[in-house]
Every structure is written in C-alpha cells, then in structure tokens.
C-alpha cells in the first residue's frame, strides 16, 4: 500500500558511482532517516547530459529511455545532484515530442524526480538532520540546481540545524564555478579563469570546508583549490548532512592528519 | 510594391508557413490597433495627484535634476534669475516661442536677457515648457511643434523647464492618451522627447558623468496651477 514509507529509487549519478560512492551512501542514509525505503536500480548509468549538451540527441534519447524504464514503479526518484535531477525533470519531457507514449512516461518520471536536499525539506518536511560534523563551511550554489530547480535555501536550512556547523557565505556563491561539463576541458583556459575567481572567493570566506550539491562542480573546485595549495576541505553536502565524513575529503590523501572531524 | 519589399514579405510568409493574413486575422489586428489597451501598469504612480507631484519631485532629484515648487507662474522670472545667479551662469535665456512663456512678468527680472527661437550654438541656457510629465520615473514629455523646437532640449548646456502641476500624470500610458486627445488618434508630432534627467554617460570605466552631449543641468520649475481647493489637501 502506498503512503507509509515511500519507495525511493536512488539516481546515483555517473560521477558519484565512479568517483565517490560515499555520497551515494550518505544520500541513502538521509533518505532512510526521512522515512523512505531506498533501492538502487542497476540499469542506470548516466542521465545523458554529456550527450545532450554536445548536441547528440539520439544518444540522449536512448539514455533517457533507459532511465525512464529503470525507474518505473518508484514513488520518487532522488538524485544527489541538481544538474542530473534537472536533466530528468526539465529536459527529458522535451525529448519525446514525436512519441506521445514515451513523452507521457517522461512527464511522469519528471513529476516524481527530486534533487536530494529539496526532496528532504520541500517534500518530506525535514527541518533538521542528525550530524556531529563540526566546521566552518561555505556553500556553492550549483547552477542547474539553483536556476532550474530553485535549490538554494534547502541545503542551508538543513546545515543550519547542525550545532557544530557555522555557515559563512562566500561572495558570489551563486555564480558559476566554470565546470559546465565538457566546457572545462574544451575551453580549459576560460574555465580556469572562472574557477580561479571562484576559488579566490572561497578562500576569502575563511571557511575550512567547501560544500555543494553537485560532484562535477565539487571536483572542479577541489582540483583548483588543491592545485593552489589550499588546505580547505571539499565535500558533497550530503556527507555533512548525514554525519558521514570519516572518508577523505575530495582529492584528499588517505592518510591526511588534518581530516578528523565527526 | 517594390521588389525588395515583395522579397522580404514573401520570405516572412514562407517562414510563418502561411500567405498574407486572412481577413479575419486582419480585422482582429486592426481592432487591436484602433483601440489600444494599456498592458500591466505598475502600482507605483497610482496615487492621488498631490502624491504624484511629490513622487515627480523625488524622482527628479534622484536623477540629479533640480526642482523648485512655485505657487504661481508669476514667480517664474525671479526664480530663473535666482537660479542662474546661484549657478554662476550668465543671465541669458533662449525661450521657446510660446505665449505662456512670453507673457510671464519678465519685468520682475530686469537683468535677464531674453531671446526666442531655436537654440543657437552659443546659447548657454534654454527655457521651455513641457507637454506632460510622468511621475512614475520623473520623466518630462516634450512634444515638438512651432512653439517647441527640439534643439532647445539638447543644445544648450542648461535646460530650464516650466512644468505645470496639471501636466503631471502617473504613467506613460496616461500621457499618450493626452497626446492622442490633443492631436487625434495615430497622429504624432515630428518628435516626442521623453527626458529623464540631464544628459549622462558611463562610457569611461562605468563612471556616471553628467553633460555628455545634451544638457548638464536640468532645472524644473513646478508651477502649482491646481485650483486652490486642491492645494490645501
């Protein structure tokens, strides 16, 4: 019977799957704390953004169809990524104008799909999380989550509920970090200029931890911060919200003594 | 019809995947043109007239125009003489050739040299009336005509405007209605200048500076021509 414990299909995202599974586990814990059951369909690989933004509609449609089928039957589909959630919610329905049956399924999936922090607060009504994390954090608003899905207040609300967290806003927290998928390698010098400006602001904020909701952005910013020799740690916001910060921060060496938080 | 025109219209219609508009569509479009409706109007200037006057003044000051309220048009010449003296400007004026400016009591400011007509290169200061003003943004609406040459609004470095309270409306839409009422529907003068503050530029390092090519100073004499009963409100 539907209702008591919603059945959530976790959209892992290709980057979390390959680069940082701990984000996926943190997301699953948060979803279970929010009263959901969590399953992970194996037939998922990628939401299709790389193909979509390269103009390859055929592969995009194929991956969208694959995703739609993989997530049939779940009450909700939740992704620890604003850009992947936006791809499914905002863009999948536009791919199937020539196929009404598939379009209907895309619309249906879109209606059930959520970015993680938005799902927890806006849908499940969570106002607090249990986390022993301590630190001075600054939060970067990833573009798709912010502008396509309106994700901005939600992660901050949950972070504010953690007693050990002090949130300090960086200047231009809502401005692009320069990742943009393939942009960061195709126009590497321009991307570098943008991420240099971004990391200037991150460092000026005085935070010891950088958080965001999208792993692409995080890898981009972490990579630059580390190239610049900065000590600030970079994590996905789910890790802090779930109180699961034992593993090294993004790009951090396994035996770094600096990381001893929660 | 010129062939260039035919070519362009044909290209448009090809793209729109239709031929010329049907009689039905045409009638709708004609109707829309014949009876224009205001679209969304901001609340800001939907105010009683006395508050619109205050809004107009506040907006002008914010624009770095200057504004003085006068109880009576008879005070205009003296007010101008004072202004020019305070600004260290020569006591010379180029007047717009209109009766309501000519008949002002200029003998009350005997030191002022007055000439009429279009602006000449050497003119430092012009004096014009206005057709209407729009409180929403502190905008003056000037309508060209034999009594209102356009060069007076742009050539001199200083522009003084006699604006009557009754000319102040809330919105652009109201001002256009007034113009239509005066000239007839679909008839326009050669130029309508909506002037919102003095001339300015930000072209050097985004620093805003006044007096690029048009007037550096815009001085408005707001003459209260409302019936006395209204003023006390």
């Amino acid at each position, binding site marked *: 019977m539907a209702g008591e414990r919603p059945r959530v299909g976790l959209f892992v995202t290709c980057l979390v799957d390959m680069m*940082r599974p701990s984000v996926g586990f943190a997301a699953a814990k948060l979803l279970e704390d929010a009263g959901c059951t969590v399953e992970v369909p194996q037939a998922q690989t990628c939401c299709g953004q790389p193909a979509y933004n390269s*103009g390859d509609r055929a592969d995009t449609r194929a991956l969208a169809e694959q995703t739609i089928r993989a997530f049939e039957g779940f009450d909700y589909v939740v992704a620890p990524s604003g850009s992947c959630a936006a791809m499914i919610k905002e863009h999948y329905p536009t791919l199937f104008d020539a196929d009404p049956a598939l379009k209907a399924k895309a619309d249906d999936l879109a209606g059930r799909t959520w970015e993680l922090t938005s799902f927890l607060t806006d849908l499940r009504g969570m106002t607090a999380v249990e986390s022993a994390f301590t630190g001075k954090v600054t939060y970067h608003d990833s573009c798709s989550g912010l502008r396509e899905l309106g994700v901005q207040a939600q992660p901050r609300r949950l972070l504010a509920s953690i007693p050990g967290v002090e949130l300090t806003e960086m200047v231009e927290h809502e*401005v692009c970090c320069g990742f943009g998928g393939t942009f960061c390698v195709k126009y590497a010098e321009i991307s570098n200029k943008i991420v240099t400006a971004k990391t200037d602001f991150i460092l000026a904020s005085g935070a010891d931890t950088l958080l965001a909701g999208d792993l692409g952005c995080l890898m981009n910013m972490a990579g630059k911060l580390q190239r610049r020799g900065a000590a600030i740690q970079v994590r996905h916001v789910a890790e802090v919200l779930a109180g699961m910060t034992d593993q090294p921060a993004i790009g951090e060496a396994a035996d770094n003594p600096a990381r001893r938080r929660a | 019809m010129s062939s260039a025109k035919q070519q362009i219209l044909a290209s448009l219609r090809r793209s729109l995947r239709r031929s010329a508009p049907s009689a039905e569509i045409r009638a709708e479009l004609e109707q829309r043109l014949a009876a224009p409706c205001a679209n969304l109007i901001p609340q800001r200037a939907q105010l009683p007239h006395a508050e619109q006057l205050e809004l107009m003044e506040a907006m002008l000051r914010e624009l770095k125009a200057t504004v003085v309220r006068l109880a009576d048009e008879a005070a205009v010449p003296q007010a101008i003489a004072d202004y020019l003296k305070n600004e260290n400007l020569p006591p010379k004026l180029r007047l717009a050739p209109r009766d309501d400016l000519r008949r002002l009591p200029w003998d009350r400011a005997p030191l002022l040299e007055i000439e009429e007509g279009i602006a000449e290169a050497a003119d430092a200061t012009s004096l014009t009336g206005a057709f209407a003003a729009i409180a929403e943004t502190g905008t003056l609406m000037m309508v060209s005509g034999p009594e209102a040459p356009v060069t007076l609004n742009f050539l001199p470095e200083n522009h003084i405007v006699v604006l009557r309270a009754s000319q102040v409306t809330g919105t652009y839409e109201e001002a256009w209605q007034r113009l239509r009422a005066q000239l007839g529907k679909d008839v326009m003068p050669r130029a309508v200048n909506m002037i919102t503050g003095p001339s*300015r530029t930000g072209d050097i390092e985004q620093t805003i500076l006044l007096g690029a090519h048009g007037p550096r100073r815009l001085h408005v004499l707001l003459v209260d021509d409302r019936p006395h009963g209204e003023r006390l409100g």
Partner: protein
Amino acid sequence: MESTSHAFKDNARAALANQTLQKAMKHVKTGFIDKRAKARARLPEFDDLRDVARDIKNHTLANLDFYLERYEEKVIASGGQVHWAPTGEDAVKTVLDICRRVDARVVTKGKSMISEEIALNQAMEAAGLDVVETDLGEYIIQLRKEPPSHIIAPAVHLTKEQVEADFRHHHRELPSERSLSQPEQLVAEARQMLRRRFLEADVGITGANFLVAETGTSIIVTNEGNGDLTQTLPRVHIVVASLEKVVPNLEDVSTILRVLARSATGQEFSSYTTFSTGPRRPEDLDGPEEYHVILLDNGRSNMLGGEFQDMLRCIRCGACMNHCPVYHAVGGHAYGWVYPGPMGAVLTPNLIGVDEAGHLPNASTFCGRCEAVCPMRIPLPKMMRHWREREFERHLSPPAVRAGLAVWAFFARRPKLYHFATGLQARLLGRLGRAAGRFDALPFARGWTQHRDFPAPEGRTFQQLWAERRGGRQNGKPR
C-alpha cells in the same frame, strides 16, 4: 564587419593574458549587475512585465508582415520614406544613394549595432564621406579603429588611461599640457570636439530600438543626447533598423521600455527616449527635411518560424552579457564579430553561419544566468544547444570529440558493460591515486590537469559497494 569568430579560442587566450582588458572588465560586474538588481527590487511588477513583454513580441512576430506594412503606411503618411533592404549590401547602397543625392560630406552617427553588422561606416568612408561616431564610447573606438566590445557600452574594454592616450594622440589642436586623467575631463573634451561636428553634419544616421506600427514612429533610447543631436540638426535623418524592431502600439512599447533601461543599466528610464515620426512639419522650426527608414532583413526572416525565433525578441539591453561568466573572463572582442556574450552566441551563427561562428554557442557552461536576467524571457542556453545539435548533425565537431562521445555513449547505453568498465577504471585510478588523493597529471585529461588536480576515485563504484553492503534490495521491480 569581418569576423574572427572562428579564432575564438586564440582570441580568448589573448584576452585572458591582456592585463589592461582584465582590469577594465572588473567594472562590468559592479557597474551593471548591482544596478540591475536594485532596479528590479524597486519595481515589484518587474518580472510580470517581462512576461507581458515576451507576449507582446511573440504576437508581433506571428503577424510581422501585417505590422511592417502598417508601419510603412504610417511613415509615408507622415512624410517619411521607407526602403526595404533584404541584405546588408542593399541597405548600404540605399544609404550611399541618399548621401550622394543630397551632396553630403559630413555624416554623424548615433550608436547603431546594425550599422556595424552591415559595415556601413567602411562603405561610407570608401565613398569619400566624413563619418563621425557621436556616442562617446563609439567615438573612442572609432579613433582606435576597433569594433565595439559590448552592445550598449562599446568601450567597456578600455581603461581611462587608454582613452586619455587616444585623445592626446588624436586631438592635436588642443594644448598638450592640459590635464586629462579624470573621466570628467575626458567627457568634457569629447563634448567640445563633437559639438562642431553635430552642427556641420549633412546627414544623421541612427538605429532604432523600436518601430511603432500604430504611428509610423522610430524610437531611440540613449543617455548622452548625441542620438537626438544626430537626428535633429542635419537636413537628412536616416534610420537603419532590422525587421524585428516593430512593436504594435504606444502602450506596447511603453511596457517594453519599462524593462529595457532597468535591465541594461539599472536606470528607471534612459535620459532620452525619443519618438520620431517623419520629417519636420511645415510649421516646425527645426528638424530634418528628409526622414528615411531602411528596413533590413539580413537573415531575420529566416529565423522566424524556426528554432531560433525567440531570439527575435531581443531588445539589445546587454543584460545577458553583463551576467555571463564567460563574457566577464574574455570580454566582447573575443567573440569576433558584432554581437558578443550569450545573445551573440545565438545570433551570430544565424547571421554569418555556424561554420564560422560555431565556437560561440559551445563556449558556455549553460549556467543559465543569461536566461534568468533576460527581460524578454529568451531561452538562450536552449538555443545554444540547438546550435550544438546542428553542428553534431553536420559533423562539425572535432572528430576526436565525436569519437570520444560515441565510445562513452556505447558503454552508457549498456549498463552491465558500463558497470564493468567503470569498475575497472575506478579500481585502477583509485589505486594509483590513493596515496596523494589526486593526480596532477593524467593521460587523456590534459585539458583538466593543465589547470587543476584531478581527485582520485574512491576505488570501488557505488553499484559494486551497494550490492555488497545492501544485498538483495537492488532491483527496481515494480510492485
């Protein structure tokens, strides 16, 4: 104007290294972004007005043939003349014919992006005319023989020191010991130098922000007053405007004007918004004796009814480029043609072809800030993506990129194979990167590692770990 858009990457590289440019570009953020935000905050109806403005333009575009014909009728009825120009060459020829017929020698110009598009100044100068740009920014870049780098602030890429150097170099008749280090002094000098030119002009040429069909009126939106002096003092006024500038009536244009200046500079209204209809009337004391409007197509009619129609709603406010991180990084000249920033990325391939201008819609992170601030609700990233689709269909992307994408897609569409391959990759890179936690160099990833470290993967994929730790609950079987 000649295009260097194909060399966007080289242009961008030079721009990034140009310290003077980078210094000047800092002003774009503080100048435009904050001011627009303040103006928007001050007008509660602002976002609703954007929706209405979009609807007005959509209505007009759907009936563009009707409104253009009505506009022409009214211009003629007021004593003006209308010339239809399918191409830029047609427009240029018309201008030269008019100038020749009236024996023009000096031509003043208000700022007009269209005139850049059709290389009008070059053609007039080649015909022996003395052409004077009168907008301060345009005047400066005319002295420098440069194109504009922003659609409303043409000289935004310059520092005041550069302008001072240009003025000293070109205004030889002025005393060399004069002080010129302050912006006020530069503006005063430009005012002085241009005043004589305004008065001696035979023909004045402006663009038009809008053309009003109801009354046959052209509108210019300026702050300096140069546009008004350009169109009032000479004997002949020529308006060069593209087809999509038409708006049905005065109420409609008032609505759009409410979002224009606020989006562009954060002003409530521009200093001078002027509505011109026909030549001087018999009883007027000043004004041009002849009034001409050249209606330019140059690719607009092709954009109607297709994927790029929404771009025709653009009112040239510049808000998109003011908020664009790519534009901030490289400035306007890098884009290589008339229109920079996001609107340039969409429009330029439409006007000069995607073969030449393909880099422009690709050089975007799709951050979406442009669309978020566009007063006419133009979906700019979506249309940039359309260009990428066209390029993909036509195999215009670099072969290596296409091949890489094909390999990736091959795997991504086959989950089992994908999970196997990613498992291997995660293990390999995880092992190699465990000690340091990251890579400062990686084969095939030079684009990344040139400028940043690459974080090492954790070493197992999520799918593998979930299967191990959570056992049977992994297949999304419907209830």
